[in-house]
């Protein structure tokens, strides 16, 4: 009964860590034993990326309480910058693992910077207005990468917008090719790094939420005027949560992109932002474990439904509606509540 001394949140946090580690160990064991299907093995890294996307968006939506519809934009920044880093370092750092870590860090830093810049105008707004502006920023980031040309030769980087005017010397490599995105990426992302990234993000989020800053952020969510009246600097704490969330999305984007041999800006459009928001809403606002489970389940679901052939996406939508309904059904909620109470009573 020692664990009872821990606070309710701490217990919840440790349960989340434990379950993520358990899932990782089981999946690694299955993969090592060769019993995991190719389909699932191929999904492991994307699941990790989507899980990080979901928990990072949950920080903005669930903890900070602001609806962001442009989260895929930060993923895009991380993806493009991360892959550029990985390609540039191909000769300098022979170890793929180290290059991957560099790519994730650079992706996170750039996404964090973009998050900061976006945050300056955006975080002056509230509620619906903020949601619409983040949506617009997501589209702007997509447009920029669709028109950006970046090349590398012995003179260093060459950059041009709208048109390929790089004037590179022979042997130079075009990294970002406008609407063609990046091609010929070495697939260096792996499940273990994805798992490590999830753990790092969870540690950051749980510690931030549990800290003084986290309480200030939640105070802003619960009542902005009251928080302001007791002297909490609103913009500072909003920015803290927003930039942290953007940086994590950047790392997720880099991980995601390095798992495929090609990546285009159009992948990170409005639909991807909404998809991540669905993970968060389904998992529960502020509930990190819920986000993780929802992201994993909803990434696997469309692939697992391939047997329905032409009706696949229809079945997916129906399953989504049913899960949302069940999740919000008062009867089921109260049943679960009773279940929890009775168990607690038994334990005490």
């Amino acid at each position, binding site marked *: 009964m020692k664990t009872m001394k821990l606070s309710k949140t701490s217990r919840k946090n440790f349960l989340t860590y434990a379950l993520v580690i358990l899932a990782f160990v089981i999946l690694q064991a299955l993969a090592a034993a060769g019993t995991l299907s190719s389909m699932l093995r191929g*999904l492991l890294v994307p699941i990790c990326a989507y899980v990080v996307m979901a928990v990072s968006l949950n920080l903005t939506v669930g903890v900070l309480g602001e609806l962001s519809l442009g989260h895929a934009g930060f993923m895009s920044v991380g993806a493009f910058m991360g892959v550029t880093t990985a390609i540039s370092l191909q000769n300098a750092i022979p170890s793929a693992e180290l290059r991957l870590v560099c790519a994730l860090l650079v992706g996170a830093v750039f996404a964090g910077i973009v998050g900061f810049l976006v945050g300056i105008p955006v975080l002056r707004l509230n509620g619906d207005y903020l949601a619409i502006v983040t949506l617009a920023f997501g589209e702007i980031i997509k447009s920029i990468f669709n028109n950006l040309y970046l090349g590398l030769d012995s003179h260093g980087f060459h950059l041009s917008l709208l*048109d390929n005017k790089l004037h590179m010397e022979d042997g130079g490599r075009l990294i970002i090719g406008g609407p063609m995105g990046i091609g010929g990426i070495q697939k260096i992302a792996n499940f273990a790094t994805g798992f490590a990234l999830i753990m790092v993000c969870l540690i950051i989020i749980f510690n931030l939420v549990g800290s003084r800053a986290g309480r200030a952020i939640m105070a802003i969510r619960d009542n902005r005027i009251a928080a302001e009246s007791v002297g909490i600097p609103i913009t500072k704490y909003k920015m803290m949560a927003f930039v942290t969330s953007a940086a994590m999305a950047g790392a997720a984007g880099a991980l995601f992109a390095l798992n495929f041999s090609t990546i285009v800006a159009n992948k990170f459009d409005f639909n991807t932002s909404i998809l991540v928001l669905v993970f968060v809403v389904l998992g529960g606002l502020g509930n990190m474990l819920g986000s993780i489970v929802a992201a994993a389940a909803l990434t696997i679901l469309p692939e697992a439904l391939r047997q329905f052939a032409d009706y696949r996406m229809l079945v997916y939508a129906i399953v989504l509606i049913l899960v949302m309904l069940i999740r919000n059904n008062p009867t089921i909620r109260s049943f679960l509540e009773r279940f929890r109470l009775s168990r607690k009573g038994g334990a005490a």
Partner: protein
Amino acid sequence: MKKALSLILALAMVLALAACGSKSGETETTPAPDNTPAVEADSLTFKLGGTGPLTGGAAIYGTAVKNAAELAVEEINAMSGVHFELNFQDDAHDAEKAVNAYNTLKDWGMQISLGSVTSKPAEATSAENYADRIFALTPSASSVATTAGKDNVFQMCFTDPNQGSASAQYIADKGLATKVAVIWKNDDVYSKGIYDTFMAAAPGLGLEIVSDTTFADGSDTDFSVQVADAQSKGAELVFLPMYYTPASLIFAQAKATGYAPTWFGVDGMDGILTLEGFDTALAEGVILLTPFNADSDDARTQAFVEKYQEKYGEIPNQFAADAYDCVYAYKQALEAAGCTADMSNEELNDAMIAQFTSMTFDGLTGAGMTWGTDGAVSKSPKGMIIQNGAYVGLD
């Protein structure tokens, strides 16, 4: 309550994972007919997989490929010799989903592959094909990146750049013109790829480029400047490496100014006659280079078009014809190499590489096709001219 729910969801996830692990997606298969001898069916039935957009904006291409491949498989399974079991998965024109679909096909036991229908997804799946040593012959992914650096990925269609040099060659060979104008779209990969190689090939063939004008997305409604430039410089032929929508406007605006050069298009022009609200009289005399013509007199093409129309209710396009050719090319290669279905993927892969780089194949989209070691096809494009609102073969 959240904890309990999370536990249940976590449990559900583990169960879902376990369930997925043991399941293999067996969908949309076209099994060999029952009347064939069992022994033969077992040892000569190959599992053929492919991905393409069956949903979303590019679904028209994926559906055409799937339909034509099904048709070819049905025909081949009714003959003696090798048989196929086809499994075609949706990738929604998305690289991520294409890789997922590819992995599903791998679980199903795919031995040879039709790659992916569209270029970007094909780039992603061909990297997997290369890593897993599963041979791929894509009907329609035309980008160079699809095959670059992969010894076991081959194309049935022209690469984008090839069309440019082939067009220049064709114009010079047929003596269509010496003074040529080019109007192209400078923010489009397809248009730029063709333009670059056309410009590289033209001077060596005695073609003089008198006018070279561009347009881009958003400025593609008014072509009066481009048309006037070509007209004032006295171009006899205008080369249009673009899709048919802007081309239709160019025809209309040139007609308004009384300019009537020879218009020359590439395979993106295929489809202009079915464009809604387009006056087909404007396209009269337009020449285009495309590997397939549904109105051809060729008996095999006519039989294919008739069967396709009967089964799916529409006239097959170039994508369908390429897919149909792919399946027949596989039949020819597998039979010539004497492959059996119990061979491993690596053995099949090596046999197919050897066959495709050495064999000659006659199909709907060209006679005497050969493949280079880089996976690009070499076939002579067919010149078509639009007469009385229909495509007519020039040769």
